[in-house]
């Protein structure tokens, strides 16, 4: 299988005043096409820094990061922006949907920054993305008219709309209850089974069990890596959780 992400002896230092913080101390990691990787670790372990670098939002101090065959380390701010636009999809803990903007318009947003896509195609792709997350009946709802799970599904649709090579999720279930978390994980597993590569940052071991491989960070280094043997099928768990009456 093709290696989509290849990270070689990557270091990241932060300078806060005169103190140097070594957030990453030489990490080697690779993700192949079709994987569903969970990055885990306590806070301060370097997992967020890792995700920022994988997401092309930050540049490493030293070492190489090769995304889909291109070394990111030498790119400018603007080049990184268009790279994020074409290659990556982001899902955040707090959804980050634009308020008072319909689901459809929110999903269209990444395509607005790609001038090669005309408005008609933009709309069609946004509709298709919303349908793939099961929200075809909520297209014209605004975020405040949607539940947390629905908002996160809009965010997932937004991350899918530009057909990225990797979807990056940062604590995507952190704000959701157990049932909704498994709903979202079920959706991610579904996308993964259709061939999407997903990198998923979480600190919940139960959620991490839904992925195919767990990478555990500690003090800026990878503590251990293991393939998930007894993988949870999120859809099955979901069926076993009773719907709370409220």
């Amino acid at each position, binding site marked *: 299988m093709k290696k989509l992400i290849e990270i070689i002896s990557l270091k990241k230092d932060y300078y806060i005043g005169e103190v140097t913080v070594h957030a990453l101390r030489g990490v080697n990691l690779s993700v192949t096409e079709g994987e569903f990787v969970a990055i885990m670790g306590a806070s301060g372990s370097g997992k967020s820094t890792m995700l920022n670098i994988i997401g092309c939002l930050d540049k490493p101090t030293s070492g190489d990061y090769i995304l889909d065959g291109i070394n990111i380390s030498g790119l400018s701010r603007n080049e990184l922006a268009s790279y994020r636009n074409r290659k990556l999809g982001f899902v955040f803990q707090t959804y980050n949907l*634009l308020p008072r903007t319909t689901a459809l318009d929110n999903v269209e947003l*990444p395509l607005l920054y790609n001038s090669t896509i005309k408005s008609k195609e933009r709309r069609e792709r946004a509709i298709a993305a919303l349908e793939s997350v099961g929200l075809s009946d909520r297209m014209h709802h605004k975020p405040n008219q949607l539940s947390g799970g629905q908002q996160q599904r809009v965010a997932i649709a937004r991350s899918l709309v*530009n057909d990225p090579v990797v979807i990056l999720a940062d604590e995507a279930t952190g704000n959701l209850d157990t049932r909704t978390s498994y709903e979202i994980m079920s959706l991610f597993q579904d996308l993964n089974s259709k061939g999407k590569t997903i990198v998923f940052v979480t600190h919940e071991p139960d959620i991490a069990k839904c992925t195919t491989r767990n990478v555990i960070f500690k003090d800026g280094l990878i503590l251990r890596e293991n393939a998930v043997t007894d993988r949870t099928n999120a859809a099955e768990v979901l069926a076993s959780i009773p719907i709370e009456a409220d």
Partner: protein
Amino acid sequence: MSIKNLFKIAMNALLRNKFRAFLTMLGIIIGVASVIAMLGIGEGSKQSIQSQIAGMGLNLVTVVPGSQQRGGVQFGASTMQSLKEADVAVILSECPAVKLATPEVRGNGQAVFGALNWPTSLYGENESYLEIRERSVTNGRMFTDREITSAAKVCLIGQTVVTNLFGLGADPVGQVIRFKKIPFLIIGVLDSKGLNTFGQDQDDLLLAPYTTVQKRVQAITYVQSIYTSAVDASSTGLAATQIEETLRRQHKIKASDQNDFTIRNQAELLSTFSSVSNILTVLLGAIAGISLLVGGIGIMNIMYVSVTERTREIGLRMAIGGKGRDILLQFLSESMLLSITGGLIGIVLGIAASKIIGSTMSWPVVVLPSSEILSFAVCTIIGIFFGWYPAKKASSLDPIDALRYE
């Protein structure tokens, strides 16, 4: 990102805070409206002064006796007797830029008709007077060459004198009035011109042949002033130079001596008054411009608030591929939309305000298209200028920090 999308996003962002957008725009609206109204008032007063001066004859070049030194004593200009009837003939024959010329002799006194009397001025002129001063005879006729030669006791009468001696709208032609005990046959009535720029009644006069006034009323041989008319308004300067040369020769003034006459032309008067009203316009415009500036600062303030409020949105837009330039243009188009919309509303209100001021206070208010274009351009510039720093701040945010902003 296309311009259409930029403005769509800006429009949606502003519509999310309609009242705030309106209040921000209000600064620009008031600024632009007051600039337009103030410039309108300034321009109106300028045009009204110009038209009044033009009404006195734009081609007019006046020669009056100048102050003179005799034996070390400076004599006042009005006591001088340096202008003669012959000067008029010389000016007409030797100055090609002068089309018409008339001597003027004045006398003040009571005009009497029956039991009524009225203090007025008698002006002695020749037959070119009407054309030089741009006046006309509404009823009756002008005096003739023959009547000038014979110093005939005929006169034309101004509307104010008609009203006071004969009653409003009466026809005095053919009646005889007395001025300084001399009877004058009224042969015509002058058109009504109203007050001039200086508040003088231009209809309070009697007009007679200058010979009559010289010989029969004042008993003098000199003339008090000479009015000439240049061939066109642009050659008044040339006419003045030619008249000066001619009169210096005629009066045999040595090169080292000063003129014994003074030449004034309307163009000079016009430029003096124009510069006064230009200063007025600039002053009014500057005061209004300050309010426009304050409006611009209001936009800057609200844009800073907006950037801070929407830090996470900026972070998200950057994360999904928005470049610094896209974010800059987004906020810039928002501030421009605010200022341009405010500007357009301001222009409409400014024109309306000018109309209201013009009609309620009966001031001459003239709104020039150039002032509309100017204030529109200023608004656009304000939008860019005051929107630039907040937009620049937004575009230089770090996406990671912006996404985490609480």
